[in-house]
C-alpha cells in the first residue's frame, strides 16, 4: 500500500527523539508539581523528583493565600485585570486594525503596513524605558493604566489578523453583503467576525500569554506592591529570602508558581481547537 499523509509512516527514531523532547520539556513541570507538595524544610533535604516528607500541598496552598495578609489573591486579581483589559483590548484593536488593513483600500495603507511590520521586530523590553519616561510625563506611572495601555498595542497580533482576514474572508462575500444593504459595522459584526473567530482566538491567546508573563514593564512601572501582577509578586517573594531580615519562603514561591500556571494551562487546553485551526489558516489556498 502506498504511503500517504493520511497514514503516516512510523519511525522508531523519530518516536524516541520526540519522546525524549517531551520528557525534557515536562521535566521542570514535574519537578514543580512534586516540589509543591513539600514543606520548606523538605525542599532542600530531599531528591527533587520524588515526593518526600509530609504531603503539604494543601497547607502550602492555604499559606500562599494567607501569607502577608493574603496579598497573593490581590496579585491574582490584578493579573486578571491586566489580562482582561490589556490582552482583551489588544485583541480587539488588532482584530479591527487587521481587518481594516486587509479589506479596505485607502491612502497610506502601505505605509501603515510597513510600520506594523517594523514594529513587530522591536522587542517590548527595548521600549520599556522610553514608555516609562513618557508615562511619567503624563503622571500615569504606578497606576494600573501604566501596564494596561502599553499592552493594548500588539503589532504582531495585528499582522496575524491582517493575514488571517485576507485569507478567511472572501471579498465577494463582503460585496454581497453591501449589495444587500448591510452597513460596514453590521457586515463586520454579523459576518466577518464569525469567520475571523479562530484568528481572534489565536491572537487573544498570544496576548493573554504575553500579558500573563509580562515582567519587565510592570517591574519598572509599578512601585506599589498592591498593584503587582503575579510574575512580579512571586519574584518579590523569592527576593524576600535575600539579605537582612531574610525570610525564605521557597515553598510558597513554588506553590504560587503552580497556581500561577494553572489558568494558562487551562486556557490553552480549552481553546486548543480554535488556535490550531487559526495557526494553520492561510497555509493552504482553498
Amino acid at each position, binding site marked *: 500500500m502506498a504511503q500517504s499523509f493520511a497514514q503516516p509512516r512510523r519511525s522508531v527514531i523519530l518516536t524516541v527523539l520526540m519522546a525524549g523532547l517531551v520528557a525534557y520539556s515536562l521535566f521542570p513541570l514535574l519537578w514543580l508539581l512534586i516540589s509543591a507538595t513539600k514543606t520548606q524544610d523538605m525542599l532542600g533535604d530531599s531528591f527533587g523528583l520524588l515526593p518526600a516528607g509530609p504531603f503539604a500541598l494543601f497547607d502550602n496552598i492555604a499559606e500562599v493565600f494567607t501569607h502577608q495578609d493574603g496579598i497573593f489573591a490581590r496579585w491574582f486579581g490584578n493579573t486578571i485585570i491586566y489580562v482582561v483589559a490589556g490582552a482583551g483590548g489588544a485583541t480587539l484593536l488588532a482584530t479591527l486594525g487587521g481587518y481594516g488593513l486587509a479589506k479596505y483600500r485607502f491612502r497610506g495603507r502601505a505605509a501603515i503596513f510597513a510600520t506594523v511590520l517594523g514594529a513587530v521586530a522591536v522587542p517590548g523590553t527595548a521600549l520599556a524605558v522610553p514608555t516609562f519616561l513618557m508615562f*511619567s510625563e503624563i503622571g500615569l506611572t504606578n497606576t494600573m493604566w501604566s501596564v494596561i495601555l502599553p499592552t493594548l498595542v500588539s503589532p504582531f497580533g495585528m499582522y496575524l489578523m491582517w493575514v488571517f482576514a485576507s485569507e478567511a474572508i472572501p471579498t465577494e462575500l463582503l460585496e454581497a453583503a453591501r449589495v444587500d444593504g448591510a452597513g460596514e459595522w453590521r457586515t463586520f459584526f454579523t459576518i466577518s467576525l464569525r469567520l475571523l473567530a479562530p484568528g481572534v482566538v489565536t491572537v487573544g491567546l498570544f496576548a493573554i500569554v504575553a500579558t500573563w508573563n509580562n515582567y519587565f514593564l510592570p517591574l519598572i512601572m509599578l512601585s506599589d506592591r498592591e498593584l503587582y501582577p503575579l510574575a512580579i509578586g512571586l519574584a518579590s517573594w523569592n527576593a524576600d529570602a535575600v539579605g537582612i531580615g531574610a525570610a525564605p519562603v521557597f515553598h510558597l514561591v513554588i506553590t504560587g508558581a503552580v497556581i500561577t500556571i494553572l489558568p494558562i494551562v487551562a486556557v490553552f487546553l480549552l481553546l486548543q481547537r480554535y488556535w490550531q485551526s487559526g495557526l494553520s489558516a492561510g497555509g493552504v489556498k482553498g
Partner: protein
Amino acid sequence: MNITRSTTRVAAAVATALLATTLAACSGGDGDGGGSAEGATAEEIEAALQEGGTIDYWTWTPQAEEQIEAFEAAYPNMTVNLTDTQGGEQHNTALTNAIAAGEGVPDVAQLEYQSVPQFQLPGLLTDLTAYGFDEHEALYTPSTWGSVAQDDGVWGLPQDSGPMALFYNQEVFEANDLVVPETWDEFVEQAQKLKQSDPDKFLFNDDGNSAGNVTSLIWQAGGHPFQVDGDTVTLDLADEGTQKWAGVYQQLIDDDLISHITGWSDEWFQALDDGTIAAMVVGAWMPGVFADGAPQASGKWRVAPMPTYDGTPANAENGGSSDVIPVGADDPVLAAGFLQWLNADPESIKVFMDAGGFPATVAELGAEEFLGYESPYFGGQKINEVLAGGAEDVVEGWQYLPWQSYANSIFPDTVGQVYFDRSSMLDGLAAWQEENVRYGQEQGFTVNG
C-alpha cells in the same frame, strides 16, 4: 540569585539611565548638588508632628510595622503609609523611577549605605542639616555616620549596622579538629584541613556574584579602592589593602577551598542547616537569618571576631542601611519628624532591636541588656558582645562608588570569573576597574584609574 541576575542587571541599567535623565533635568536648576530644603527647627518639627498628617514610608525592614504602630501611638494625629519594597536593586529602581516621575515619591525611604552616594551626588536627597540633624552625630557609630554624612551634608540617619564577624559551625569544627581562626592565614589553613578531612564540606562559600561581600572584605583589609570627591572619582583596585585581600582569596581559589553554592538560594540555606558550609564571614545582622533559614542547625553555630591580617582588630560594615528623605517628598517637615523618631528615638530603636534588628547607635550597642543577651540559637553564647565589639573596630574612610549598584552588577563578569577559571584575582580586579572607569566616564564623571 542566578535566575534574577540578568533582570537585576537590566534593572540596574534602567535605573542608571533614568538617573542620567534626572541629572540632565536637574542641571538646569541651581545645581547645588542637593535638595535646597527650607529646613525647620526642632520645635517646628515637634509642632508639625503634634498637628499631624500623613506620610509615605518605603522600607523592607521586617521591623517597620511594629515601629510604625509605636510611632502612631506616640503621635496620634500622624498616619504612616507603609510600602514594603524589596531590598536592594528593586527598591532602588522603584525609588529612582518615582523621583524621576515626580509622582508617588515617598516622604521617607530606606537606602542601603552603599547606595547613598548614588542618590546623593545627583541631588536626589534632602540635606538634613537644615533640620538640625547634624547634631545627632554623637548618637551613631563613626562608620555608619560616615556613610550618611558626606559632601558637607547629612543625607539620612543610620538605621542598622553590619559590622562583620566570623560565624562558624562548632559541631563541624569539633568533628574535624579545626580551631577558630584568628588570622586570615589560619583561616586558609583551616579551610585546607577541612577539605582533607571531609571533602564534602567547605569552610567558605562565595559564588562570585556578590560584590558586597568582597568590597566589605577589601574594606577590612584597609583598602580604599574608591575615592569620591564631588564629580571626581578615583579608582584603585590594586592598592595595598585590596592586594592583601586578593592574596588570601587567591589561595582559597587556587586550592579549590571555596564552595560555589549560590548565596541566598534554597541550596545555600540547606547547606547552612546541614553543615556543608562550616563558616562564613558576614554582617552582624546574620543571626536572625540563621534562625529563620537554618532552623535545624539551632545550637550548633557560634560567633567569633572576624579574622585579621596581623592580629590587630579590624572590621568593616557589611550591608546595613539608612533612611533618607528624597527630593520631592510631599511634606519634608513631617518626614523629618518621622525619620528622627524612627532612627534616633530610643523607643523606636528598642522596638527595632526587640524584633531582631542590629542597631547603629552607640548607646544601644553598649547597653548591658543588649550585650548580656544569651542567644538560644547560638547555644546560649553572648553573641552581641562579639558583634558589638566588631563595630568599634570598623576601619574609617571607606567610600562607595556613585554607581555602586551598576558596578556590583558587572562584578560577576569580571572578578566573579576568577572563582571558576582560577585565574589571577588581580587581573579580575583590573578588569572590573577598567569597566568601571569606562562606565563612570560615560556617566559624565571625571574618573581617574
